[in-house]
């Protein structure tokens, strides 16, 4: 009968989990210049065009150089480009440094650099990073070591996005493999600190030091990266010494990581924001009073504590904290806020067309940590008569529904951005172009006036730009298509055999890690 089979399967599953958790420290005698790293997912591609996700980019940035990079203070610094000029608002001219070679010994040329950017605009490549380079009109090789980029319109975000998406690959290899560069079958070739010696979707990636690297010699000789999808199993693997470290730590789990013996967990501000998206196009959420009522009803302080374990805080503006700091320094603007106030929430709801409350569908990814926050939000909203119908969906189905923008009146969105410039976030949030399928404007909010304002952002610099961004943020705060909830810190856990230096803008995690003194 079925019961015996089901019980046996369940028991087997439990035993497997226990076995994984109780695994000893097989590598306790491993050389300290070999690092065993674990992440929640294995990289799916070593090319950002086909693997634009945390696991894949972690490896990509260790293997591939970018044209420029973001320095520890958030400013753009040279990398393969030794320098650049900005002769007019729409033009950048990059001069490549002398000496970089790919790990097979081939020199990095201006042709390689130019092609590495233009390929993202090629429909045949179907690049996942295409939206980051839409402002690029033309890329030309103007000399043996110079590349000129012409933009469609002035864009202060261009350099920052180039630090993320302009990964340098050999033109010959990339042109031969538009769709499968970076796959386990094709692999990749970079001029970064490490080279790939093994890549499998199942067992992970093995990297070795690139002896031809033009920059400082990496302290690690070999890195073995594997996937451990269950957070608790991952924690046990680091605790037992089965792996040496991870950068895949959920903020709400930080308390447990900090308590591990023999493991140091470093925290730093993440370029992150979690917010509630309110679909403004139909239903009760069309009414701005309803949206303001929801914003007032949420105890965001308690929510931030729950979700960040003290390693984060309330989000006041619809931008990640590092972007706010980069733009405003330590004096962010004070905008109309909707603080936690149930009386005010009820008053706003009473002014709406739905004074008695209503029920809203709230689909969520059943495999995500966000479900905890959604339950807290549902309890807060129930206090004013707004009931959430929480609908668990498998991850893929949820993502499809989320990006189809259908039947998602209310959802919790949790995003990490790649650059210090608000120009990366705001057009995604409130432009009408992003309100369609695959866009990030989940609320559907937008207007011709807002689009014009967003277009105008690129023409300003300095204080003018800050003022222009403030105008956009003020409209969001007033109209509440989104409710900023909390920001959280990122964390890296390392066994004490290693030390590391990490920050918000650390792209290549591995180059910052070295064996501890005496290890």
């Amino acid at each position, binding site marked *: *009968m*079925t*019961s015996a*089979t*089901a*019980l046996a*399967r*369940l028991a087997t599953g439990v035993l497997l989990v226990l076995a994984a958790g109780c695994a000893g420290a097989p590598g306790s005698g491993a050389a300290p210049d070999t690092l065993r790293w674990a992440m929640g997912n294995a990289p799916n591609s070593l090319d950002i065009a086909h693997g634009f996700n945390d696991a894949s980019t972690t490896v990509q940035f260790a293997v591939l150089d970018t044209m420029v990079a973001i320095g520890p203070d958030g400013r753009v610094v040279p990398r393969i480009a030794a320098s650049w000029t900005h002769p007019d608002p729409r033009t950048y001219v990059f001069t490549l440094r002398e000496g970089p070679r790919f790990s097979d010994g081939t020199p990095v040329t201006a042709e390689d650099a130019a092609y590495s950017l233009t390929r993202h605009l090629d429909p045949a490549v179907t690049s996942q990073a295409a939206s980051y380079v839409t402002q690029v009109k033309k890329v030309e090789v103007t000399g043996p070591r110079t590349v000129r980029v012409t933009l469609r319109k002035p864009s202060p975000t261009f350099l920052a996005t180039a630090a993320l998406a302009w990964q340098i690959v050999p033109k010959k290899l990339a042109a031969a493999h538009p769709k499968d560069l970076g796959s386990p079958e094709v692999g990749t070739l970079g001029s970064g600190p490490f080279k790939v010696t093994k890549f499998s979707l199942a067992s992970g990636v093995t990297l070795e030091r690139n002896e031809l690297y033009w920059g400082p010699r990496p302290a690690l000789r070999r890195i073995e990266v594997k996937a451990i999808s269950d*957070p*608790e199993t991952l924690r046990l693997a680091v605790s037992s010494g089965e792996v040496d470290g991870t950068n895949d730590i959920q903020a709400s*789990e930080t308390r*447990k990581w900090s*308590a591990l013996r023999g493991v140091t967990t470093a925290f730093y501000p993440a370029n992150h924001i979690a917010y509630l998206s309110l679909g403004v196009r139909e239903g009760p959420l069309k009414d701005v009073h309803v949206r303001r009522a929801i914003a007032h009803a949420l*105890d965001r302080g*308690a*929510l931030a*504590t*729950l979700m960040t374990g003290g390693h984060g805080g309330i989000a006041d503006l619809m931008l990640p904290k590092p972007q706010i700091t980069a733009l405003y320094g330590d004096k962010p603007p004070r905008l109309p806020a909707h603080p936690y106030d149930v009386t005010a929430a009820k008053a706003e709801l009473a002014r709406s067309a739905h004074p008695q409350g209503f029920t809203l569908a709230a689909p*969520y990814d*059943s*495999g995500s940590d966000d*479900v*905890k926050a*959604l*339950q*807290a939000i*549902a*309890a807060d909203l129930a206090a004013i008569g707004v009931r959430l*119908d*929480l*609908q*668990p*969906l*498998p991850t893929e*189905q949820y993502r499809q529904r989320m990006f189809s923008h259908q039947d998602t009146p209310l959802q919790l969105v949790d995003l990490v951005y790649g650059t210090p410039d608000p120009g990366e976030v705001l057009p995604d949030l409130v432009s009408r172009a992003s309100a369609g399928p695959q866009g990030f404007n989940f609320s559907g909010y937008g207007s011709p006036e807002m689009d014009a304002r967003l277009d105008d952002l690129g023409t300003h610099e300095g204080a003018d730009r800050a003022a222009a961004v403030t105008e956009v943020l003020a409209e969001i705060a007033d109209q509440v298509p989104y409710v900023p909830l909390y920001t959280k810190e990122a964390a890296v856990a390392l066994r004490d055999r290693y030390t590391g230096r990490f920050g918000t803008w650390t792209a290549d995690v591995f180059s910052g890690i070295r064996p501890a003194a005496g290890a």
Partner: protein
Amino acid sequence: MSVMPGAVRLGGRARRLRRTRPGPVTLLSGGILALMAAAALFGTWVAPYDPAAQDLALGATTPGWAHWAGTDELGRDVLSRCLAGARSALLWPLVVALGTCAMSTSLGLLAGYRRGWIDAVMMRVVDLLIAMPGLLMLIVLVGVLGGGIGWAVLAMAVLFTPGDIRVVRSLTMAQRELAYAEAARTLGLGRARIMFRHLLPNIAPTVVAGALLSFVAALVALSGLSFLGIGLPAGTPDWGLMIEENRGLLDLNPWAAVVPAALVTIAATAATLLGDQLFERLSDA
């Protein structure tokens, strides 16, 4: 007036059942299930707190006078949620068990009694369904259908039915050749009457035991689905969901996960033992 052999046997069984006193295992397992059924019916009334009431400032705490099984990460009382959770923990497996029992008994009787092409077609479909890995199919089906307890219950009932059809069919095939069934046919009784009035009572012990085993399997499988986050929506007081939600609290309040896990185990064990006892008593009678 003629008396059917089956009717004579049933009468004797009933008399003997009345005479035999239930053993301690039956009493214990029956008592546990009765207590759980009471919790399912009245749990929300007797729970010390509202099972949904959150206290984020309190968070996860160990057992104490205020909260006998402690609280979870959202500050909800674990004991109250366990009491309220008995409803979904028992109700949905009961629906699966009754659905499975109704489908497998009807189809098994039909296949076993009619034989011929009906039996052949039905058995090939049964073979196909049995060849599929049950729990895996369940996860895939519920995932594809978009999650939700309704689909989970329906899919589970469909996947549990084939095994039971095969059992009922073989018992029916044996019974239909016995003298009392032959006599019924000779008397010109209709097929449905023979199957449900005469054959069914004679295979009832196995059907009842099978239903209880389906209940146990559904209890464990639904807890597993809730654990995987594809059964009931988050926040519902449910033992499987509580295990999933609270497994990360083993260092803060292990009881938040251990208590619902123990309840699933105890309920499954009690139902299995009761099924065994009932089968023996009904068979011996």
